[in-house]
């Protein structure tokens, strides 16, 4: 096809404005579409962001351990929201769509990934003397029951410390998770410390804790503090 052909240019996503949208040209586009040599998209940026997430190491690692398609989608959406956040883009509609389809659990998973908890979690997991199958089982169990194994502390929890401590203790005592995660960002790190200390005191020797801290990329206020409460492995 000649480079002078405006349809050829259009199919490369170039110089749309020069296309004469005559009836014949529209039929030509439809023919190329039916021949499966052309697809249409409104905003290429959306596709670009989504495709970039599928190249990330976190995603490739996650895919190695988890086969569930729903978790695949939610994981990638968590990465996409993080990318939007870094670009300073607003994304409330995306959260609403996630909630409408996957409910509260979907938002938990996307938050978990968006906040970089998966890479820290897998690091914590890999440091334990367990095999690949158990790692897979642990990750699946975490995602299956994420609402009872992860808690996101907010700044306003500063006024609600005792309630939050009791909420965490109730979840841990009811389900005895291998790992319980307490996560915070920015100013929420202060109540997070207090809550974690109270929880550990109440749990006694059943759990040990490891902390992960990261500086914010743009400001100190974006710094993260994540506690992994690991159930002690009982000797056989």
């Amino acid at each position, binding site marked *: 096809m000649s480079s002078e052909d405006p349809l050829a240019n259009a199919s490369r996503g170039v110089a*749309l404005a020069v296309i004469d949208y005559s009836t014949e040209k529209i039929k030509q*586009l439809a023919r190329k579409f*039916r021949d499966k*040599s052309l*697809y249409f998209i409104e905003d290429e940026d959306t596709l670009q962001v989504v495709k970039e997430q599928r190249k990330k190491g976190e995603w490739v690692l996650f895919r190695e351990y988890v086969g569930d398609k729903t978790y695949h989608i939610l994981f*990638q959406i968590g990465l*996409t929201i993080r990318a939007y956040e870094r670009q300073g883009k607003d994304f409330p509609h995306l959260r609403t769509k*996630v909630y409408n389809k996957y409910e509260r659990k979907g938002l938990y998973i996307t938050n978990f990934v968006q906040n970089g908890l998966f890479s820290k979690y897998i690091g914590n997991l890999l440091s334990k003397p367990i095999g690949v199958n158990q790692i897979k089982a642990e990750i699946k169990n975490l995602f299956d029951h994420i609402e009872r194994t992860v808690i996101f502390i907010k700044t306003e929890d500063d006024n609600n410390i005792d309630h939050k401590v009791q909420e965490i203790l109730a979840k841990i005592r009811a389900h005895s998770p291998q790992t319980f995660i307490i996560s915070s960002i920015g100013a929420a790190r202060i109540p997070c410390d207090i809550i974690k200390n109270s929880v550990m005191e109440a749990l006694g020797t059943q759990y040990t804790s490891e902390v992960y801290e990261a500086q914010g990329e743009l400001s100190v206020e974006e710094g993260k503090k994540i506690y992994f409460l690991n159930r002690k492995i009982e000797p056989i």
Partner: protein
Amino acid sequence: MTEKLSMKDMPKEVKILLLRELDYDSDGVFVLKNGEKHLDKYINEPVKVDNMFIYPGSTIILDNNPLSITSFLEEYGDVL
């Protein structure tokens, strides 16, 4: 690989004519199929003419948002 055509600068009238060529239609806002609002199969929401993703084969018309596009790639692989 199938080539892509951005519809960002395409006049709405052209989009509607194109939809008709593909056996769909529009009420000026939403994509219609057999007179009913066409729903994005992944998010179960009506697709607007000004935010479409249209893929050939069995003609998949989706809302162009990250959740639908990610779901599409998860089902069909890296075809885009």
